[in-house]
Structure formats: C-alpha cells, structure tokens
C-alpha cells in the first residue's frame, strides 16, 4: 500500500449551535464511533485526520478540525479560535429549527476574519426525520445565502459523514 503524500494541511472550524452534533460528526469521522449521551463541548477540541483525495492514496489533505463549543457571543477567545481558518463546517440540527437561527453571531465575524474560507452547510440528524416528507426549502435557502454546498448527514448512522469531509477537502484543494 502506498503511503499518503500529504501536500496540504488545513484548519477547519466546526460551527453551529449547541446539541447539533458537531462533536459527534468529528468523532464519527476521526474514530468511527458515536456516543448516545450528549455532552456539551467547552472551549475547543482539536483533532486531525488525513483525507485521501485519490484512490491510490497518493494525494491527501490533513484536516485539522477545531471542534468549537456553541458560541453565545463573539469575544477575544473566539477570535483566537477562528484565526487562520481555511474552512468551516456549519452544522444545524434539521429537527430543531432554532438551530438554523442566530448563526450571524459567529458566521459574520468568522467570514470577516477568514473571507476566503470555504464553507459547507450541514443538516445533521437526518436519521430522525422522514426523508420523503421533510421540507428542505428553508435549509436550501440558508445554503444559498451562505453560497455553500448543503449536505445532510447522520453522525449516528454514519450517513454522508465521510462524504462531508471529503467534499470539504476537495473544495480546499480546488481553492489552492
């Protein structure tokens, strides 16, 4: 097996309201595990994983994931978390419309600090809704406003989780 040739390292911020599953997505991606019990994150947890972007693993990107706690207000501490970020995964819980709201609190300063950052908007917990009847309109509108791709995921059932990070990796490589 050929060894991965890492050519890029990118800092990614996980953003979103509390309880949307930011930590669960990261855990699923890094350790392929899911914990049923909710534990709110404090501060920031930094984990990293290399994503292979070619079938022969000859080309990879190291994603340094900053799993940031729910941001109630923007301050100096958060500013240091955002600094130098190349991409962000903006997560909402599709079963909880409150989690789509108030994103400006962190997104506005984030984008001011990192205007070239790539975003992906994620509707997590897709396992909890009836896909045939779920109305995506509002989420698609947010995604359009953010000018970012939209993807639904389930950290619990591992639906689209790898796809999400691969997609972000591809976006970052294309932006190089």
């Amino acid at each position, binding site marked *: 097996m050929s060894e991965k040739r890492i050519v890029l*390292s990118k800092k990614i911020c996980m953003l979103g309201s509390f309880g949307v599953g930011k930590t669960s997505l990261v855990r699923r991606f890094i350790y392929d595990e899911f914990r049923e019990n909710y534990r709110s994150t404090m501060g920031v947890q930094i984990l990293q994983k290399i994503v292979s972007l070619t079938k022969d693993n000859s080309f990879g990107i190291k994603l340094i994931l900053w799993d940031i706690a729910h941001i109630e207000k923007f301050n100096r501490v958060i500013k240091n978390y955002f600094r*130098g970020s190349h991409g962000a995964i903006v997560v909402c819980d599709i079963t*909880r419309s409150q989690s789509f709201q108030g994103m400006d609190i962190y997104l506005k300063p984030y984008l001011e600090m990192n205007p070239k950052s790539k975003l992906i908007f994620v509707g997590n917990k897709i396992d909890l809704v009836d896909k045939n009847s779920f109305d995506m309109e509002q989420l698609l509108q947010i995604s359009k406003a953010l000018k970012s791709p939209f993807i639904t995921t389930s950290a619990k059932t591992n639906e689209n989780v790898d796809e999400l990070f691969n997609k972000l990796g591809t976006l970052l490589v294309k932006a190089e």
Partner: protein
Amino acid sequence: MSNYIDQILKERKIGFAIFDQDFILSKSSRNFSKIIHNNLITPNSSIWEIFPELFGSEDQVSAVVQNKQKKYQIEKVNKYSDGGKLHYYDLTLLPLKNKAPNLLCIVADTTTETSLEQEIRQQKYEIELLQANLSSYGNYLSNDILGDSVKIKKVREFVGKIANIRNTTILLQGESGTGKNLVARAIHRLSMEPKSPFVEVNCASIPSTLIESEIFGHEKGAFTNAITNKKGLLEEANGGTFFLDEIGELPVSLQAKFLSFLENKKFRRLGSTQERKVDIRVIAATNKDLKQAVENNEFRQDLFFRINIVNLNLPPLRELKDDIIIIADHFIRIFAYDFKKKVKGLTDHAKTKLLSYNWPGNVRELRNVIERAIIFAEGDKIGADEIILAEEKQQAKVTQKFTIPENGISLFDIEKKLLLDALSKTNGNQSRAAKLLGLSLDTFRYRMKKYSISI
C-alpha cells in the same frame, strides 16, 4: 530553589516552557507535559508539534516572539488523558527577553473550573434541547403532510402553490380527523414569517353569545361583563394566519359581520365605533356540506361564495390505503419517543389489520390507536393483538358503504371473493380468516368447500 518553584507551579496547576526563536523547546517545568497531556515531548520538539492548536496562527506566534505582539492566548483547550478523562488547559504565549528572542509558554490546568462551568452549561442546554424537542415533535405532528399516494401528493402540491398567494381566503373541507388543522398550519408555515402568529378558533367550541367578542374583541362596557377593553382573536392574528375551524357552526347572526371583514379586512370591536384594520390570511375549515347548509338557510350564500374561492377537499383515510402504514410508522416514532419504548414498526398481521379497517375517525383515530398500541407494546414491533379498533363501527361502515349496482350482482361471486380476500389477508390462516368475516371455523370451512376453495 528550582524545587520550590516547581512546588508552587504544581499547586497552582501552572506549567511553563521556553522556546527559542526557531520555536524549538529549550526548557520546561516538570509538570508542563502533564498539564497538556502530551507524553511525547522531547527536548527537540517544536512548538507546532506540541500544540497543533497553533496551526493557522503562525503569524501571531511569530509576532509574539519578536515582541511585536504582547501575548497570544487560546483558552479551554480540550485534551483527553490516556485514561480517557477530559482535561482543559489555557495556553498563553508571551515574549521573553533574553540574549536572543525567546517565547515563554504558560499552560494553566483549568479542568476543575471548566468542568464546573460545563456542568452548568450542560444542564442549561439539556433543558433547551428538551423544550425544542417537545416543540419540534409538536411541529412534526402539525407540519408534515405524510404519504405518497396521488391524493396526498395533490394536497401537498396545493399547499405549496397556495402558500405563495397570501391574500386569498382558503376553505378546507373534509371529514373530522382528516388533518384540516395540519394543512392550515402547513400553509401558515410556508407563507408566513417564522414568528408570525397562527390563531385558531373553533366555532363549535365557543358559546354563540361569546363568539363575536372572542373574534372581534370588545370595549369596556360593551356588555355587562366587559370590564376592560379586550383585543379579539383577529387582532391577535395580525401579521399571521387566522384559522376559523368549523365555520359551518358560525352563528348566522355573525356571518354578515365576518363577511364584511373578509371584504375589506376592517372591523369594529364590540361597543366601539373605531374601525380597525388587520393584515391576516384567513383559512376556514369545515366538515359540513356548506352547499347543503346554504340550501337549508343555515349558512349565508354570499359568505359561502366569499370563502369558497380556493378550496381543498381533504381525502378520508380510507381512501389513502397506500399511506396508512407510512402515517402509522410516523406516529410510532413519535409515541415510542414519548413513552421511551423501543418499538420500531408493525408486524405484518398488524399492518393487515390496519389496512382492512375503514377508519371512520380518519388520521386522528389512527393516531389514537397507535398511541394505545405503543403503551401496551412489549416487543420491538406492534402486533395485531395490540391494535384495538372500534370493530362495531367498522362493520357498520362496511355495511353502509355497500350498495347493489344497478345491473345487479352475484351473491355467489361476492361471497367467494370475501372468503378469498380473508384468506389472502391472513396468509391462508383459516382461523383468522374466519374471524375476519365473523364466522366460526367450521362455517368458514364449509363455505370454502362450497366454493371449491382450497389452499
């Protein structure tokens, strides 16, 4: 002296390290690696290897070492120890004046304080999540028009189209329990701002003497018990949707006033001369045949024409056979969650039982049946025995529905078909097939023989 400093640092849970201008570790306190839970630190480790959290902040770190920036700090960094315990530390970088520029790195273990803060936040968030869950399950009930049948797709299509036209009054017709309220809420949700009001009034549930005051409001002294001014429900609905359920029960005396309101969106409170204007969408609903009510002089024709501009007939559940299981599964998810049961679906027999029923109470009845079944369910699937239906009503409805066609019908064929259907529904189980038709097993077998049915 060095031991003394180490002791203080240990007590205060603070560690330090010094990095040279190339960001290579040159010195550290004994507890430094312990606080940051990194056992792989060597004298030649670079700051970037030790602290991946500094990635992306290279400019700031360089500015600090060159004394161009006073300090750089990252707070509450999470780190798991080898034992799997979560720790927190704050990382602060300061310039250190020496022969060459150096970097002083201070790490402070904040696990105790941050864990306490985490517990408080956890409780706060859990309460908010619980509240949101309750509300979203409420929305789930109200907002989702479930089903894949053509009739339900048409309902969804209607809702999607009409949501864009805010000024039209909509009339929803359908039997009790067909989801008129649900459709009204769906139209509201799609056409109004998220926080706009949805005000509902059921004309049948308010005494006719009070309904005018409830809808239009009143001024102090307008009638004996009017001790204060009171906004009516129309005013409460301003900027949103006013849902007038069972409009067929609106007293005739009030119908003219309501028609006038619909015409110009203006009204007067009881006892007031002041005209008020509101911006609302009106959705009316009824399970009555309003045309018939007009003919019986129970409903004003002009009001009927006014509200009947855009109407939707909601199909009864018995016409949505393809959707019954989808809707049942939806309620199973909701009630299993509410009652903390691990029920995930229905057995085939239970499905057959649901599909063979006539559902006179429509979706509301299905919801109640599933709620009861979940309460009594013991396994991970609801069985036929846990589905309790109003059998008498079922039989009565079947009898009512059946009429002999003009050109006649063969009783022989009908009876044979019923026997075959019953066997098909029970997968050939003769006892259960007999039960479905209200026959003893012996009688059932006798008739099978009579019609040469063999399995």
